[in-house]
């Protein structure tokens, strides 16, 4: 599907519900979702790196506001009010949120400003939430002005203030948690039986077996149309395929994460929704010698070689074979979601003859006629490190190896276990890797992996361009030109070809056809399930139970 069409699909899925809400019947219903990984801690401030927990948490705890249909993190007018019914700007460094007075916790206690302060303070404490604290470093202080008004003061004026305030740490019930030692929330009873303020509450949780949520009839934004949401952990993708074939589930997360997905891509019982993904897959060129990271890499420091290696690959074919037909091929570290906001640089298309010429011009020729290019006696040979558990990336690696072999580049594919992969990546002990990362919907995270300061941290390839750093820093501080500056940074970064950007997957989410008003949010698929309905007359036995 082309990008404009996908955009339309996303827009449509977000807009239809509001129009159709009144027309659909209101029935008790059950949505059964087979998930690869189960939630561990579906409580805000505990799920920073755990997407399954975030998915469930978003059904239990409302954010102050949600991202709007454009998924823009800088356009404040596009955010959708949730717990906060409005927000105002007192000055460039201060936002004031006014809570919806109808909002209440599921124990009947009203949601107050104290709850917002409690959650954000917890999130900003590096000893409790190190990952969140790093993300919320620009918030200076959070204060309750009265029961329903919260003031957030930032260290500087920047475009993503609202996003930072609402996205990472939904409010927590201070009246229930002030008695819990902050560091023991992960093991407190609240973790398994949280009291939220959202459309659902946990009514049954047997770890490894089932997580059942039941609709909150008193939900202040309207009674959910689906009475029960059931998450069934089934880590083996073959099992998820079997469950779909047997009609035992209503939805799975992503068709393209299943083996032999062609078997289940057109089941009549399902409708397949395209949802832009937050992931991006790329191979980083390590620009330092893996044997001694104080020295430059003997091959990859030359940008001409890097570009030639990229253009020897047909990335469209590679990525679609691995991640499905909807997948986009970026030329920058930009997920499909971020790609909606950022215009990508010109595409580096496959061109083997041009690549060969570039390599020859750089001195890489087959002098000894052994089938491998060489320069000053050194063969054009390197290792490609891949996490062995990722079938899609292993398949990609084999195809890349073959494409390069035909051009006289010798590549050894090194499958390693994920913990070893991460350890070696962090230590810079690799030539080229095959990385998959989930990004937040904001480009501000780019600085972590693509700035000089990120070296030694997430910047595994030692890419360092002071101009990119400056642009990213300016974008992070700008109130008005942030979007353009991020775009410039991404373009500048892409020109240097620090990596082979392979795929920005777009998910295809199968959902049973009896559901109407289906909204699937890219940042949290099931967060809008409360707006779904069952089509009249289409209910199954499990909807009535």
């Amino acid at each position, binding site marked *: 599907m082309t990008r404009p069409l996908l955009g339309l699909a996303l827009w449509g899925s977000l807009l239809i519900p509001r129009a159709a809400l009144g027309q659909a019947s209101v029935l008790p219903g059950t949505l059964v979702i087979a998930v690869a990984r189960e939630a561990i801690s579906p409580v805000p401030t505990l799920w*920073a790196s755990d997407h399954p927990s975030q998915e469930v948490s978003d059904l239990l705890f409302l954010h102050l506001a949600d991202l709007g249909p454009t998924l823009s993190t800088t356009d404040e007018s596009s955010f959708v009010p949730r717990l906060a019914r409005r927000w105002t700007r007192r000055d460039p460094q201060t936002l004031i949120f006014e809570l919806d007075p109808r909002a209440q916790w599921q124990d009947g206690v009203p949601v107050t400003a104290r709850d917002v302060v409690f959650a954000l303070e917890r999130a900003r404490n*590096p000893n409790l939430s190190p990952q969140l604290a790093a993300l919320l470093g620009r918030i200076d202080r959070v204060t309750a002005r009265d029961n329903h008004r919260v003031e957030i003061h930032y260290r500087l004026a920047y475009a993503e203030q609202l996003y930072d305030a609402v996205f990472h740490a939904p409010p927590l019930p201070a009246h229930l948690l002030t008695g819990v030692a902050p560091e023991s929330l992960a093991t407190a009873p609240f973790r398994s039986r949280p009291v939220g303020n959202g459309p659902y509450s946990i009514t049954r949780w047997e770890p*490894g077996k089932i997580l059942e949520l039941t609709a909150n009839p008193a939900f202040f934004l309207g009674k959910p149309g689906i009475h029960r949401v059931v998450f*069934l952990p089934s*880590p083996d993708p073959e*099992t998820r395929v079997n469950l779909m074939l047997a009609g035992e589930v209503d939805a799975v997360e992503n068709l393209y994460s299943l083996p032999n997905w062609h078997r289940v891509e057109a089941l009549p019982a399902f409708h397949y929704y395209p949802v832009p993904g937050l992931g991006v897959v790329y191979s980083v060129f390590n620009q330092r010698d893996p044997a001694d990271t104080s020295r430059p890499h003997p091959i990859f420091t030359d940008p001409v070689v890097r570009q030639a290696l990229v253009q020897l690959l047909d990335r469209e074919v590679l990525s679609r074979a691995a991640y499905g037909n909807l997948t986009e091929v970026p030329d920058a570290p930009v997920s499909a979601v971020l790609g909606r906001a950022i215009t990508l640089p010109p595409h580096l298309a496959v061109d083997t003859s041009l690549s060969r010429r570039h390599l020859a011009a750089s001195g890489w020729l087959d002098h000894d006629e052994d089938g491998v290019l060489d320069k000053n006696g050194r063969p054009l040979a390197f290792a490609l490190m891949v996490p062995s558990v990722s079938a899609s990336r292993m398949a990609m690696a084999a195809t890349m190896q073959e494409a390069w072999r035909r051009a006289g580049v010798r590549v050894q594919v090194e499958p390693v276990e994920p913990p070893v992969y991460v350890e070696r990546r962090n230590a810079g002990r690799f030539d080229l890797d095959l990385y998959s990362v989930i990004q937040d919907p904001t480009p501000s995270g780019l600085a972590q992996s693509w700035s000089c300061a990120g070296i030694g941290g*997430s910047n595994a390839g030692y890419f360092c361009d002071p101009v990119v750093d400056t642009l990213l820093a300016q974008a992070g501080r700008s109130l008005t030109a942030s979007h353009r500056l991020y775009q410039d940074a991404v373009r500048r970064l892409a020109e240097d070809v620090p990596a082979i950007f392979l795929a920005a997957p777009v998910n295809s989410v199968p959902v049973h056809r009896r559901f109407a008003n289906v909204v699937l949010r890219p940042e949290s698929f099931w967060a809008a399930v409360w707006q779904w309905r069952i089509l009249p007359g289409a209910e199954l036995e499990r909807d009535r139970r």
Partner: protein
Amino acid sequence: MIRWLAGRLLQTLATYALAVTLLFIMMRLTPGDPLAGLSDERPLPAEARELLRRRYRLDQPVLTQYADFLAGALRGDLGVSIAQHGRPVTALIRERLPATLLLGTTALAAMFGIGIAVGVLQATRAGSVTDRVLGILSLTAYATPSFWLGLVLTWALAIEWHWFPVAFMHAPLLDPDAGWWVRLTDLLWHLVLPVTTLTLVSFGAVARYQRAAMLEALGLGAIRTARTKGLRDRSILWHHAWRNSVGPMLALFGLWLPLVVAGSVFVESVYAWPGLGTLAAESIGSRDYPVIMGVAILVSAVVIGGNLLADLLHGWLDPRLRPSQ
């Protein structure tokens, strides 16, 4: 006798301590970052990584970590899981153990029950067509990969014919307040495919051991004497010959006993059975040291304890093996 027992117990404890120590050291020598599970999908800032290393005491020398582990284990505290956000390991094991115990004991009973029956039948008809056919069938089943058999059985019996559920331990939407009979039948219904898979791929080994042991026992002079005394065939077979063949079967049982607690990763995975096998595999995959050690000390205890039990039972059944007074 008491001295022998005490010595055997001491030997078992020493083996256990050595096994646990070796497991701990080997786990730490294996390359891999235990924080990988927390940072694979979203990059973890360096400061956050350092803080987490301190939180889980990964920054301590290995000997200190080992001392901490031992001190905790002696108090019944196996530490907290890194991948599961600090949840206690004992709680994780408690959640998963019942499912594995149920699947393991049922499968073990079925595989030994069927394996012994088939082996005895083959031995009594050695060289016949029945013996050969059963031999080929059991060997074929033994050579079949469990995950493949599981997928085939699921496809045929669950997806095509709808006789059994595709996966899980209970019907997910079964009313939690349903009567015990409904819950029991539902559990048994879900148990059929995983137990069948595990039994089919393993009864062949039992049958082959049993056949060989039984053939040896049937050739003993005592059996010939029993026949000449005019004892009934059934009595000769089970009371005399089979009892003499039990030794190797007990040794085999001791080797298979860990199945009861370790589970089968492939079968648990295919049927989404919430057992310890998948927990252990996930923990090894993410280098979640505390969980790996928690599961390992449990499995080691069963392996070593199982062997001790097999020895004691063997001695009880075969007076020749008892220590002299």
